[in-house]
């Protein structure tokens, strides 16, 4: 007789298995009936099991019906693989947070364990799948979900301080997930400008053993403090000891970029691609690096590969199309570049994409000596800007401004760059890039002056509010700050100062719901733009204190 050893699966889990609905996705009929058999043996209701042979079939079923548990083969032959089905299902909201998605694979690979795909399954199961293993895994996933649901929700609503508190509470009782909780807590600390606390935790862990995630975390702490050499040393050693730790390659590539070593950055990513050839994001970054360093053939190859890899992915981005169009345009093939932009417009909707595409289109014409067409594109771009319903990052703004300046739309281009400077008056990298744009348009001298006056203007606008606050005129101060935020909605220092002044006011005069919302928005925007700002947490804590005092 075999002495039974206890299983973590409780009667509650058995209940869950009995009343759950299942979807089995596998391209082989034999595997489908095998997995169905195992499910039945676990106690699943045979009538609650559906099967699909490929991506489209699976998506169709997922659209019609909510499944509690999905068993999906990782490698499905042609078309979508298991990962892409999961991505699409998540992207289209076909599975809720309660759904257990289990990926079945023939073997453990770097991709399955450490892939940096945005959509991760709840578990990987190695074939052969047995009843005991499946039951145990379902129980484990449920326990994990119970631990992490609140934390995930807090992170999703960007209530980071609550998420950190929850991590601490849960880690004290949940021994299986304690390390994962600690890891997430440290990530959140870094994300909220509390690198010092994260550093202490990492260093404590690393005194007794070399734990890769803690070493990576420490490198990120260095990066946030702009200690790129230190980060670089750590990451190089980390990769030496853990050749297949893909996250470390991405981080090292980023560090090299910060150090201006673009060749090393791309070498690092090329090594990562050897290990995991199917990441379209990584291919895209390689393309962007190659384009920046003038390696056009390499850039074209990488962008084309990005498009091919993301063809079946719900998470493809327009950036690969834009990058490819820029590259091909620079290779003196304007027709193909325009063709690519047209394709992009078929796949993606939205003004934000259109305006970026228009800027690239204008540059393609300009580069290839089609002045009239470049002019027309610039006019269309200018009209789109006038409508004012697009949002763009600094890089896109510079690209648009560059086109406007070389096509004679000086005022528009200037305004765009002025706004960029005022939003980032202390970002040396951005300021230099803006000076470059002026330089290329033959306006170097004017550029220097514009940068200087715009920075002064940014300071003047912010100080107007601060001076009122110092004089004790709270409401005037708030008005001035609000005015400044409208003009510089991405100026981090301004957003934090505005929040500070508004909090001061409410701490004395009492809370106002609309002001609470405004402070919260300012703070979250600031954090999103610059996660290394240590003031964020203190201001957020003050806000929390105010809200709990009134609303509970």
């Amino acid at each position: 007789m075999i002495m039974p050893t206890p299983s973590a699966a409780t009667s509650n889990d058995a209940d869950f298995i009995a009343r759950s609905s299942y979807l089995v996705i596998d391209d082989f009929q034999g595997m489908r009936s095998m997995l169905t058999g195992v499910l039945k043996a676990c106690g699943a209701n045979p009538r609650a099991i559906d099967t699909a042979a490929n991506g489209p079939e699976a998506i169709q079923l997922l659209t019609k019906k909510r499944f509690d548990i999905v068993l999906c083969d990782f490698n499905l032959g042609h078309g979508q693989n298991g990962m892409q089905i999961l991505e699409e299902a998540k992207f289209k909201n076909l599975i809720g947070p309660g759904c257990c998605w289990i990926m079945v694979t023939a073997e453990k690979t770097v991709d399955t364990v450490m892939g940096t795909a945005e959509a991760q399954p709840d578990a990987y199961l190695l074939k052969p799948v047995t009843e005991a293993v499946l039951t145990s895994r379902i129980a484990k996933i449920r326990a994990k979900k119970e631990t992490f649901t609140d934390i995930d929700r807090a992170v999703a609503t960007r209530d980071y301080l609550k998420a950190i508190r929850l991590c601490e509470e849960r880690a004290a009782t949940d021994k299986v997930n304690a390390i994962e909780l600690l890891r997430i807590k440290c990530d959140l600390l870094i994300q909220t400008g509390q690198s010092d606390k994260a550093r202490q935790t990492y260093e404590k862990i690393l005194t007794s053993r070399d734990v890769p995630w803690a070493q990576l975390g420490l490198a990120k702490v260095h990066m946030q403090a702009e200690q790129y050499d230190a980060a670089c040393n750590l990451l190089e050693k980390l990769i030496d000891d853990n050749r297949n730790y893909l996250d470390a390659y991405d981080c090292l590539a980023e560090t090299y970029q910060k150090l201006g070593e673009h060749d090393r950055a791309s070498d690092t990513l090329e090594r990562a691609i050897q290990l995991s050839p199917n990441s379209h994001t990584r291919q895209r970054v390689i393309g962007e690096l190659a384009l920046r360093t003038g390696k056009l053939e390499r850039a074209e190859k990488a962008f084309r590969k990005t498009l091919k890899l993301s063809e079946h992915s719900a998470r493809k981005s327009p950036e690969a199309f834009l990058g490819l169009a820029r590259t091909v345009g620079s290779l003196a093939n304007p027709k193909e570049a325009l063709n690519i932009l047209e394709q992009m417009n078929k796949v993606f909707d939205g003004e934000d994409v259109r305006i970026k595409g228009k800027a690239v289109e204008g540059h393609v014409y300009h580069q290839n000596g089609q002045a009239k067409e470049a002019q027309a594109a610039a006019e269309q771009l200018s009209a789109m800007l006038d409508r004012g319903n697009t949002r763009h990052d600094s890089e896109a703004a510079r690209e648009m401004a560059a086109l406007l300046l070389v096509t004679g739309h000086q005022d528009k281009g200037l305004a765009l760059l002025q706004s960029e400077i005022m939003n980032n008056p202390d970002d040396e990298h951005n300021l230099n890039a803006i000076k470059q744009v002026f330089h290329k348009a033959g306006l170097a001298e004017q550029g220097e002056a514009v940068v200087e006056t715009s920075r002064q203007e940014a300071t003047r606008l912010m100080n107007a509010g601060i001076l009122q606050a110092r004089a004790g005129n709270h409401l005037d101060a708030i008005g001035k700050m609000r005015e400044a935020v409208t003009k510089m909605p991405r100026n981090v220092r301004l957003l934090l100062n505005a929040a500070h002044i508004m909090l001061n006011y409410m701490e004395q005069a009492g809370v106002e719901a609309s002001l609470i919302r405004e402070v919260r928005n300012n703070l979250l925007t600031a954090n999103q733009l610059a996660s290394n700002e240590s003031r964020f947490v203190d201001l957020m804590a003050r806000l929390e204190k105010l809200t709990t005092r009134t609303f509970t």
Partner: protein
Amino acid sequence: MNQPKSDVALFLASSVHDMKNSISVLQDSIRRNLLQAPHEQSESYQEMSQMLYETQRIHGNLIQLLTLYKFSNDLYPFHPETQELGEFIHLAVSHVAPLLTSRSITLETDIEPDCYWEFDADLINGIVVHAMNNAVHYTSNHLRLVVQVIDHALEIRIEDNGQGFPQQMLDDGIAAMRGVNFNTGSTGLGLYFAAVVAQMHGSRQEKGSIRLENGGPLGGGCFILRLP
């Protein structure tokens, strides 16, 4: 004339991979047949049980070969995670349960309650299952699996009531066990694999290790895996 140089190691690895998948399918159907077979004493049942033992052995060996190949080419995603030992052993035992039943071998487990440890579950599961399969072969009718924390390390012991290991094997130690012994048919692969995997675990002060002993409560052989 120059022949294109073939990468034999790569061929070996991909063939091993292919064979492993075939064996896996075979193993699955034998296991299912065995569960459905009515008479435990019947000849076909015993034959199938033997088939299961052999396919499990081959499957285990192929996985170990493939994993060692991945180790040496930096392809194995080493991934330690916290495990609750009761559950972990329950799963390991479930892999050998049909074999134990078919051979009327009893198993007792003695697992420290509420015990959590961090290790790569797939690798350690491979070692434990392999060690139990091995013990099934050499025991007379009883196995004992003990899990306890001793001196800041997790120790997993697999004991049997058979004849024990040959004295030569104990004298030579783990390090000497490499290459095929044509007298016993032992390749030493299992022990070598276990030693390599154990080494990958542990802290800066102490690395993981394995050792063999004779005696103990059951008086037979004993395989011990120690993970600091």
